[in-house]
């Protein structure tokens, strides 16, 4: 390099230090909450009969803290630290960096207060209430502006692969978050999602699956691409593997969401898409693992002494394991066994504990000594952390495999007589009690290791002082001449072939008849022509890509295109065309005011964390719970409550199965009606008076969203509510129980008793459209 002009750059590492320490702190909170809720499943008394300590409210706290507080802060630390160095410039705006930091911490505190109090949207990993949603979106935009602004003023021409993953993260999370959080408020603290029933299910799992992809995976891959070669002091294994696995990963990931809804009432074509795209995701995921592990070639001996590399190597290995397990679980027949069981929980934790937390630990151990200009306080302690964590994860996931497969097999098992082999749900739950205990042990070991890390880092920091890094970098040449225009990014041979391929593939897949046949031929031809063209002009194409890497805007637009396609094709047909949904001869009744009130209590208490409302078309389930779920039955449910885990039985058809008195006793003390149950008791439902005053506005909002509630005055709503409440209270009185008809438990019983009631859909089209 014979450029004599240099500029002096001082990196902004203070905000990196803050984000890192916040990640450690929130990591402790998230894991502590995790161990507590795991223990609650074994020992119900740990729910303490206290509303804000029950499992249904704390489980969202655990997941949100782990994802958004722990991994979020860790990601921001890694992105801000590595990006400044990879593009050789200081973060564009100190103000935005600190707004980002404090805004994010405030959001977390808001979540930690509202979730235990029962303020929730009732959608997994999207529970936070609408004012916080808006804050998250705004702070995310602050992050995006700060990041892209930094790219715009960079002193390094070309964008390294880590930056590609950061770009994909920022734009995709923004898209997912905003769409899945679209809501209409009914009050300052409550809102209904604008999507309902199957639409809500589809949007939710498009979001839920890709939150894992673009919040827990792509940013960490970017972090891997910076810190792993740094720590190993080895070159990255393969640049072209980076290119291929990046683009295939971001394009394919988005399509795989419906695998969370396999064997439900979701239309078959969506289920099939969810399954096959999950299978196709296997290789792109392993591309990342390969590039990580093979970069360690020539550095394996360092693993013995360097805790950083130990954590990275194990983290990447767990990434490989869980991205193999993912496609496996997305196979329809495997999913019939695994879905709703602990197997899914184990799968998630091999990702979050094995991949996220281990990569985080490696990064923390690498960063801390460098950011505070000192040496790690104790390598031995870090080693101990590693082994405690490793044993903890293995105990955890092994317990969940055994528990998941055992309960899955038992619940689906049908005797030759044509009846359930294990008719009693609690017998099945209690058969895996030892596994639940083992999970607590695994989680506690992992937490203990993490505490050791926190201690180690604090001691390290005490021996050093915050370091300010200033480097001399070559002054940038004016990029204007070489930078690629947006048109240059969009109109060129590789793009043309990709677009044609997607178009022909979609026509082949969806059009049917002659169009499909012709499209198939065209698709094959496009591949052939593209391959021939590549063999002739491969060098030119890679030049084009090199130039694309020098232009962040076209790169970002192409990434956005890649992630938009899948969701658009899956979701738009269901949103814009009611005809696309076959309601399957079942049509939900519109809730009465009392039932609606009960449903909101069901959502508030987080019942969906343990109970599904979707009977799958499997023999065992139909025998146990009744006819399988139809789309029309949850049509008016904002949000849908199909659930994703059964610690308790499915409730889709529980209405009318038990008398009111049974439910009344059950909520007060679940063990009085269900011996051996691990469900929390809900004594406050008997004390609290239902919020009748909120109902008129709630009903008005639902009417706006298309639910055909009859027109009623506030007074009529109140009267109807009390009339139905008195009916239930009167029925309870026959059994010698006296309770006021406006207590919350009455509303919840009313909701329970109408679950599973529907009418044939003949009259439906008229009323819905």
């Amino acid at each position, binding site marked *: 390099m014979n450029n004599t002009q240099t500029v002096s750059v001082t990196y902004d590492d203070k905000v990196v230090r803050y984000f890192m320490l916040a990640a450690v702190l929130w990591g402790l909170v998230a894991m502590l909450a995790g161990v507590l809720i795991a223990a609650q499943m074994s020992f119900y008394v740990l729910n303490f009969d206290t509303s804000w300590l029950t499992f249904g409210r704390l489980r969202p706290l655990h997941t949100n803290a782990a994802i958004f507080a722990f991994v979020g802060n860790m990601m921001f630390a890694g992105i801000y630290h590595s990006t400044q160095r990879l593009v050789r410039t200081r973060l564009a705006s100190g103000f935005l960096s600190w707004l980002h930091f404090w805004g994010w911490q405030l959001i977390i505190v808001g979540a930690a207060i509202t979730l235990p109090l029962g303020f929730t949207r009732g959608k997994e990993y999207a529970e936070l209430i609408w004012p916080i949603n808006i804050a998250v979106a705004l702070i995310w935009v602050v992050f995006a502006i700060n990041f892209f602004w930094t790219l715009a003023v960079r002193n390094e021409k070309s964008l390294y692969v880590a930056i590609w993953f950061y770009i994909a993260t920022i734009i995709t999370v923004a898209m997912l978050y905003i769409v899945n959080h679209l809501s209409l408020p009914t009050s300052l603290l409550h809102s209904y999602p604008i999507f309902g029933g199957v639409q809500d299910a589809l949007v939710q799992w498009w979001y839920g699956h890709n939150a894992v992809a673009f919040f827990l995976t792509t940013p960490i891959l970017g972090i891997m691409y910076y810190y792993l070669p740094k720590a190993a002091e080895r070159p990255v294994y393969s640049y072209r*593997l980076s290119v291929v696995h990046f683009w295939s990963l971001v394009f394919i990931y988005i399509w795989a969401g419906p695998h969370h809804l396999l064997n439900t009432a979701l239309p078959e074509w969506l289920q099939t898409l969810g399954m096959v795209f999950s299978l196709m995701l296997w290789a792109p995921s392993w591309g990342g693992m390969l590039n990580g592990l093979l970069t360690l070639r020539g550095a394996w001996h360092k693993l013995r002494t360097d805790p950083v590399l130990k954590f990275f190597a194990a983290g990447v290995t767990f990434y490989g394991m869980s991205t193999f397990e993912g496609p496996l679980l997305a196979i329809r027949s495997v999913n019939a066994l695994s879905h709703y069981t602990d197997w899914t929980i184990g799968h998630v934790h091999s990702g979050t504990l094995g991949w996220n937390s281990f990569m985080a630990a490696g990064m923390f151990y690498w960063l801390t000594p460098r950011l505070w200009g000192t040496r790690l306080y104790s390598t031995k302690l870090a080693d101990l952390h590693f082994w405690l964590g490793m044993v903890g994860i293995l105990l955890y996931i092994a317990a969940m495999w055994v528990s998941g497969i055992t309960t899955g097999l038992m619940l689906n098992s049908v005797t*030759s*007589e044509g009846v359930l082999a294990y008719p009693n749900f609690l017998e099945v739950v209690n058969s895996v009690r030892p596994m639940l205990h083992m999970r607590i042990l695994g989680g506690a070991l992992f937490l203990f290791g993490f505490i050791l890390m926190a201690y180690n880092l604090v001691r390290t920091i005490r021996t050093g002082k915050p370091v300010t890094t200033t480097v001399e970098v070559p002054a940038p040449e004016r990029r204007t001449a070489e930078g690629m225009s947006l048109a240059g990014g969009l109109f060129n041979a590789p793009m043309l072939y990709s677009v044609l391929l997607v178009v022909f593939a979609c026509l082949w897949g969806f059009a049917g008849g002659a169009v499909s046949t012709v499209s198939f031929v065209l698709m094959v031809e496009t591949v052939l022509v593209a391959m021939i063209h590549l063999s002739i002009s491969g060098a030119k194409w890679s030049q084009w890509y090199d130039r694309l890497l020098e232009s962040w805007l076209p790169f970002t637009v192409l990434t956005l295109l890649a992630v938009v396609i899948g969701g658009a094709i899956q979701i738009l047909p269901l949103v814009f065309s009611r005809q696309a949904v076959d309601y399957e001869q079942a049509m939900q009744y519109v809730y009465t005011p009392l039932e609606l009130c009960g449903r909101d209590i069901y959502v508030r208490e987080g019942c969906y964390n343990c109970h599904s409302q979707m009977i799958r078309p499997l023999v065992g389930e139909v*025998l146990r719970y009744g006819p399988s779920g139809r789309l029309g039955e949850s049509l008016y449910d904002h949000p849908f409550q199909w659930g994703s885990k059964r610690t308790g039985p499915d409730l889709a058809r529980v209405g009318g199965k038990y008398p009111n008195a049974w439910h009344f006793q059950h909520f007060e003390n679940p063990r009085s009606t269900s011996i051996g149950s691990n469900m929390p008791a809900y004594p406050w439902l008997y004390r609290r008076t239902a919020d009748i005053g909120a109902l008129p506005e709630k009903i008005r909002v639902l009417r706006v969203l298309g639910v055909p509630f009859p027109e009623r005055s506030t007074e009529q709503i109140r009267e109807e509510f009390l009339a139905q409440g008195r009916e239930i209270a009167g029925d309870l009185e026959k059994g010698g129980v006296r309770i006021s008809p406006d207590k919350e438990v009455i509303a919840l019983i009313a909701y329970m008793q109408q679950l599973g009631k529907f009418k044939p859909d003949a009259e439906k089209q008229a009323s819905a459209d």
Partner: protein
Amino acid sequence: MKQQTNPEDDALRHHTYDGIQEYDKRLPNWWLFTLYGAIAFSAAYWAYYHWSAHMVPGYVRVERQIEEIQKAALATGAAPTDVQLWRLSGDPAVVAAGQKIYTANCVACHGENLEGGIGQNLVDGQWIHGGKPTDIYNTVTKGVLEKGMPVWGPVLGAARIADVTAFIISKNPTIQKPPEE
């Protein structure tokens, strides 16, 4: 630890990022095979399932399966008679099995000593839905939905309902021995 390989293969890309260098290795063949294999399989799977005329909605498929299973079950066993149930109630092994089923499924509503609660008393000699052994058997099998008694037939199956009926009979001195056929 320098490895001896094809020197061209080990060429580094000219650009470095904050000191990080990159090889440009060929993609491993087995990895490419996995990628292409998954794509080919997915296309074939889609073609087979999405375009197959045999594809029926899940709820129709499962109803057919259950119909077949229940037909087969019907062919193998008929409902027990009063006499058979009475005899079972004298078999300690059957009664013990029935008691287990009772404890797991019935106790919550009918009480530990069959004294009733949410559900009816089963030892007071009063039978709203009939007190013959087969009446009890049928009540358990078909349930009494309007009174909150669930349908146990498809859940427990004939054999276990016979066991639990035998247990209930054994606790009820008021039930008369049916005349032998």
